[in-house]
């Protein structure tokens, strides 16, 4: 489907927010695939950061040529997009004390999740290298604590250090961010015996579950199994995932 871009602007150094007309009904944790044009071939996956009536937003970082091309797109341009794809975060009525842990460019999908969970008691721990983004929006939905690697904002250090202080009385943890962070979140969830879901990344081909290239190693009773990040995930129970 081709959708009209409503806005595409830099919100902090090298990080952009793109708003797009959209007629699908996404759930938090799901993603879209965008044809980024130029001499890119495969579509690029991006998590949905926000959803309103007829519009979604993504927040992305310039990584290579696809995201660079995307950063040049202007309002009223159209983009070829598929989705929403994948299995997002499961939300449970019975859990009220929720901890959300995000790192870097893994943070965007957690905003959409926080919005959906806003009636709950939300603790939100966000980690950045230096420049922060989306923080004010998170503050609408819960208590936010911040860590930056250079101490630019909040506590100097890693989000996982902040998380430690917040984990008491938590019923459920949701995480998205770099692999080391997810591994630490998984370990801590297991240490404190709190159910935890994490959103993982893998390079994709089709994005819809047909080509088997987006393998995530998961534990099974008899050993392990490669599941599909695009279809079974990108959100998995942290217990399942083998790092």
């Amino acid at each position, binding site marked *: 489907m081709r959708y009209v871009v409503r806005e595409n602007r830099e919100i902090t150094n090298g990080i952009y927010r793109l708003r797009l007309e959209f007629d699908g009904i996404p759930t938090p944790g799901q993603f879209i695939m965008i*044809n980024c044009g130029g*001499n*890119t*071939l*495969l579509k690029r996956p991006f998590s949905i950061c926000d959803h309103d009536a007829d519009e979604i937003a993504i927040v992305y970082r310039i990584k290579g040529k696809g995201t660079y091309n995307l950063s040049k797109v202007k309002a009223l341009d159209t983009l070829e997009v598929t989705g929403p794809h994948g299995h997002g975060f499961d939300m449970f009525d019975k859990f009220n004390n929720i901890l959300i842990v995000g790192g870097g460019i893994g943070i965007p999908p957690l905003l959409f999740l926080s919005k959906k969970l806003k009636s709950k008691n939300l603790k939100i721990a966000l980690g950045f290298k230096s420049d922060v983004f989306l923080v004010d929006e998170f503050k609408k939905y819960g208590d936010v604590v911040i860590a930056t690697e250079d101490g630019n904002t909040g506590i100097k250090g890693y989000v996982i250090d902040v998380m430690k202080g917040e984990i008491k009385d938590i019923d459920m943890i949701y995480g998205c961010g770099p692999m080391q962070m997810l591994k630490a979140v998984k370990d801590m969830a297991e240490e404190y015996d709190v159910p935890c879901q994490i959103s993982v990344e893998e*390079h994709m*081909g089709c994005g819809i579950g047909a*080509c*088997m290239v987006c393998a995530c190693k998961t534990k099974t009773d008899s050993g392990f199994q490669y599941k599909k990040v695009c279809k079974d995930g990108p959100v998995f129970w942290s217990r399942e995932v083998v790092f």
Partner: protein
Amino acid sequence: MNLKINIGNLELKNPVLVASGTFGFGKEYSHYIDLDDLGGIMVKGLTLYPKEGNPPPRIYETPSGILNSVGLQNPGVDVFIKDELPFLNRFNTKVIANIAGETIEEFVSLAQKLNIDGVDALEINVSCPNVKEGGMSFGVDPNSVYAITKKVKQVSNKTVIVKLTPNVTDIKIYAKAAEDGGADAISLINTVTGMAIDINTRRPVFKNVFAGLSGPAIKPIALKNVYEAKRAVSIPVIGMGGISSAEDALEFMIAGATAVAVGTYNFISPTGSIDILEGIKKYMLRNSIFDVNQLINSINV
């Protein structure tokens, strides 16, 4: 307008198929296109037992192409028959089972298990570059191609297609080996072997070092192989490799392909196979061609 073509005894309603491994077992794409519109579906490579495949990463984008190293992850032939085939059989299209044995005996067992209603043809995959046992090691040896084809033909009551690898010096020898073994058709090309290196770690991107290149980057190679293979055999040729437009598909047919398969392009556009079919029809109308068979091997040299 006639779009029907024949592959051995099998009549396809049109010459546009989807290539093995790029279309799963059809379910996912049924949300984007009507599977009834396809000439046929070449399903993901099936092995005798479930196969977990290679560790990630499994894909890497290159200029106009992708390298993949899936390693034939699939649920195995029995689960395919039980869980996937019934869905495919709801549609009025041909089901072509792509089979990958590690030994000749496994190819025979796979063919026997697939002697069932709902399977229209077998595609013998002797050309997968991403597995250690079997795969391309068979496909680069004409004697193996001949022997496997012959054994499968002996036990199978289906149309038998042999899928060839381009990673050989002379494709004609392999095309001929398949024909001599009794193949009803050949299909080509499977992926071209390639590699990529991460310059920061100086390690190969893929654990297996080599991977298979597909997409527009390989189209000229594929076209040349189809053209040459067609000249070596009298059985039909199914052409594939980088096809991303109706024009690409037409080139293959003019070069000698009776049918074409769309692979990597399904990833770029999930409706791509049908768009290509529509484009072929338009070309035929524009050029007053009433039977698609008139296009096959119509090259002027």
